Structures are given as C-alpha cells and as structure tokens.
C-alpha cells in the first residue's frame, strides 16, 4: 500500500461486534450481488481517486459467515498527504454502506434478522444513479 511517494496510509477495518441494538450477536452472514458489488466498489474507488490525490486504494469485503471479532471489510488508502487518505477512507466506508449491494444477516440468541430490511424500520435510500 505504501511506496516512496506515499506519506500516509489510512485503513479502516470493520469487525463483527457481539452486540447490536440490544441483541447478543453470535454470528454475521454477508450476502452479495457479486458482479454488481465488485463493479460498485471499483466505481467508488475511481470516484475517490478523482476526488482526492491518492497513491493507491484497496477494498476487500467478505461474504458468507463472519465470526465475532473477525473483519468483514478492509479499506486501505495511501496518499502523499494525510488529509487525502483519511477523507478517501471515510468516503469508501460510507459509500459501501449506502450503495454497494451487500447485505448482512445478524444471527443472535433467539433469532436472526437481515439488517436493513426489518419491517417498521425507516431507511434513507441512496440517491439513484
């Protein structure tokens, strides 16, 4: 990720928590629309490269079961100056959560639920492209 022209590397790792909204979570399971998810990840990477002065950027997202404490997503960005790496890293995780077609099922004590599609919950959908 580094390199002679990089002065900063910012990374973000999303990890599976044992607790969410009052539930004792025992496992996460991710499902993706793989072809479109990869395309959207590539697209948001290109948008970041256009918006900030970056050296390199990488995003990995797991699918399938992710145990508590394990990483579900890793984002790494390098740049000449730290502001760019921080901003692009933040942008990437926010965009992933808005528009990349990946869904998380939370398995907890006594049940399971697809996050984002519980009835009664209000969503703000991303702006349509």
């Amino acid at each position, binding site marked *: 990720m580094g390199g002679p022209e990089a002065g900063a590397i910012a990374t973000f790792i*999303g990890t599976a928590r044992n607790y969410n909204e009052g539930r004792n979570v025992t496992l996460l399971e*991710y*499902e*993706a*629309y793989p*072809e*479109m*998810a990869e*395309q959207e990840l590539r697209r948001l990477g290109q948008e970041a490269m256009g918006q900030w002065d970056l050296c390199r950027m990488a995003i990995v*997202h797991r699918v399938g079961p992710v145990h508590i404490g394990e990483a*579900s*997503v890793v984002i790494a960005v390098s740049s000449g100056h730290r502001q760019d790496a921080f901003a692009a890293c933040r942008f990437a*995780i926010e965009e*992933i*959560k*808005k*528009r*990349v*077609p*990946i*869904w*998380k*099922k939370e398995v907890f004590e006594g049940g399971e639920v*697809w*996050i*984002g*599609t519980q*009835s009664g919950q*209000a*969503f703000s*959908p*991303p702006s*349509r*492209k």
Partner: protein
Amino acid sequence: MKVTVKLFAALRQQVGSGELSKEIEEGSTVEQLWDFLREESPQLPDMKGSLLYAVNRNYVTRDHVLQDQDEVVFVPPVSGG
C-alpha cells in the same frame, strides 16, 4: 418478452428462490415488475419506499423501461461494511 429477476438476502428468503424468469409486456417499467412480483408473492413486504432498482448491474430509476433479457435486481437497503 422475458427478463431475469435475481433476489438477494431477505427477498431471496421470502420468495424461496434466488432467480426467477419472468414474462412481461413490452414497455413495462422496473417498478411495474416489482408490483407484478408482489401480486404473485404476497409474502414480499411493501417496501417500495426503501427499495432500489438495478438493471444489468446498474442502479436505475423506478420508471426505467425494461428490455428483453434484462437482469433485474430489487435491492433492499444494503448493509455491508
């Protein structure tokens, strides 16, 4: 004409299948296809307000007119990360 509907996550579980082949009328919009699907599978929730539509792997607006052989995905709120 014929389109392929792919279903993921909660929608896949509710319908009990990840892929459907649908015969639709020429000029149908992606939103009309969703309405049609809900008539067929009433277990699908009324979630138009939070649904996104993707055709051939790109997000489209609800009034997008479908073409023969399109791959359509109804995208419930994503929750990756």
